[in-house]
């Protein structure tokens, strides 16, 4: 290549502001490579303030995740299933699904609990704890799979008399456009007791947990246990008429409605998915015994209620898998696009993750999913196993 005029290049290289403006436009992965350019570049690219500016730039430019990471049914290896969503350089990103740098002891399972704008909250759970988190010692790990940076957190133990009967729900709140700090919420509910969740809030700013007084009752049946972050709040869903969400700004628990068709009293649809895309909450479910398609519902931004957003037709999926009973069909993610006609859903059929264009019906294979350890091979990965991954440099 021709060497560019040194004077101008040196002006840029020597001017931190000019250099920053160029580097924030480069995706996270090539920036990891450019840490080797010089000590100045290493220091700039590692600077937490730069990392936040970078995250904001890319969040505004493209709020679509790079991939999905799927929990491996308590697999004993800390490697998650990887479903690429950006077609161009799919395989080269699968490395981010390997969490071996966390050095989780072989006696522990690693499970993703939440993901939010590039950060991932994992739990490492002692084998003896089994599938119920209750009673086992909980160690949380917050990490960025792109940079492999992580921090271990001890979770608060609830003040219940009987430590065996409570359930715990988690949420992670991080929005680089609002703050460089993240918050983790932990709700402990003892269903045999008062049903008032005990609320604990962690802030990365103070690096400590605080206990939150709360008088609201938790719905008795939580559908999906993972809190979904959307517009400065963490949401859980239930099979009842209402459910709870935590407003991160005011630090308070609030009530929001659930679509009546999914509640246990009046249930006409199987509820399969609860998630976020482009700042809106979505739920999806299938009509029982009627599998020609499914419905996606969207919550109004003022929490006034849900409205039917899409009816997703499964004809093209049925054509691609004519012999399948669709027992293992699951919805992994709903992804709205800037152009409505590009909106898609990520589904799993026959151990294959595919994207389905909602309007055109175009089907595209994204990855083949491995069966979980010790489980029947035909058991599908479900929506609450799938977590959005954003390539990002943000610090934990």
């Amino acid at each position, binding site marked *: *290549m*021709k*060497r*560019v*005029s*040194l004077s*101008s*290049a*040196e*002006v*840029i*290289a020597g*001017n931190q502001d*000019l250099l920053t*403006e*160029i*580097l924030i*436009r*480069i*995706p996270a*992965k*090539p920036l*990891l*490579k*450019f*840490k*080797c*350019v*010089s*000590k*100045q*570049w*290493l220091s700039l690219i590692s600077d937490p303030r730069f990392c936040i500016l970078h995250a904001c730039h890319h969040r505004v430019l493209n709020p679509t995740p790079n991939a999905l990471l799927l929990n491996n049914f308590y697999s004993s290896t800390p490697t998650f299933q990887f479903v690429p969503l950006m077609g161009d*350089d799919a395989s*080269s990103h699968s*490395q*981010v699904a390997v969490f071996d740098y966390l050095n989780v002891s072989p006696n522990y399972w690693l499970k993703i609990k939440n993901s939010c704008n590039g950060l991932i909250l994992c739990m490492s759970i002692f084998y003896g704890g089994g599938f119920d988190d209750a009673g086992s010692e909980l160690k949380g790990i917050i990490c960025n799979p792109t*940079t*492999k940076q992580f921090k271990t957190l001890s979770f608060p133990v609830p003040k219940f008399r009987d430590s065996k009967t409570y359930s715990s729900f988690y949420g992670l709140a991080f929005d680089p456009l609002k703050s460089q700090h993240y918050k983790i919420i932990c709700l402990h509910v003892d269903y045999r007791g008062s049903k008032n969740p005990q609320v604990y809030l962690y802030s990365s700013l103070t690096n400590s947990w605080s206990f939150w007084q709360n008088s609201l009752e938790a719905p008795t049946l939580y559908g999906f246990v993972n809190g979904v972050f959307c517009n400065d709040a963490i949401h859980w869903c239930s099979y009842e008429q209402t459910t709870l969400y935590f407003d991160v700004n005011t630090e308070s628990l609030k009530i929001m409605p659930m679509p009546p068709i999914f509640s246990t009293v009046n249930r006409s649809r199987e509820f399969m998915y609860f998630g976020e895309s482009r700042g809106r909450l979505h739920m999806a479910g299938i009509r029982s015994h009627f599998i020609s398609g499914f419905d996606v519902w969207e919550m109004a931004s003022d929490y006034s209620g849900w409205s039917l957003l899409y009816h997703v037709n499964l004809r093209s999926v049925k054509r691609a898998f004519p012999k399948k009973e669709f027992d293992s069909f699951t919805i992994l993610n709903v992804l709205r696009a800037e152009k409505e006609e590009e909106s898609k859903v990520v589904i799993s059929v026959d151990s294959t993750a595919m994207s389905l264009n909602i309007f055109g019906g175009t089907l595209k294979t994204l990855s083949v999913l491995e069966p979980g350890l010790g489980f029947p091979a035909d058991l599908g990965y479900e929506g609450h196993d799938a977590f959005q991954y954003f390539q990002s440099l943000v610090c934990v």
Partner: protein
Amino acid sequence: MSSSAENPTLTAEITKPSTEIATETAQSAKKITLKTSDDQIFEVEESVAMEFATVKSFFEDAPSSTDTVPLPNVPAKPFSQVIEFCKEQIKFKANPDETEKKRSNSEFVKEKTNEDLVEMIPVANYLEIKDLLDVLNQAVADRIQNRSVEYVRSFFGIDNDFTSEEEALLREEHAWAFEDVDED
């Protein structure tokens, strides 16, 4: 640029009522004289010169000034390319069309060498032309992101100040980021 001859906005102006053309000609007649760091004199239409925030604030401080504006940090070669960009931008101010503007911007950077881009960045920064700076920064980012570390050092004239052990350690830490790098 050959494409400006086919630009529809020019054709549109011809069909405007004659009085409007007269006013426009009268306005565009006013020229501002600017002197670059290598002592070249540029006579630039006022509307184009007002795209340079630095020059604009000079005239806000001294509205009646007819002096030549010195641009001590601006060499003639990148400056003429910056003027070319601003002339195009003005058309979109009168007639906003985001798609066409994007196309025009990418056309502008496509035909520039690395040297052209890098020379224009400090000029656009000094003259405070935000749109141009955005376009140039993105173009440089696009050109280097899939390149090797050695290419980038050479691009910016940066000396490697790591020991070979330090560099090896950094490369090992993020080995996956070094896959799929374009050949230099």
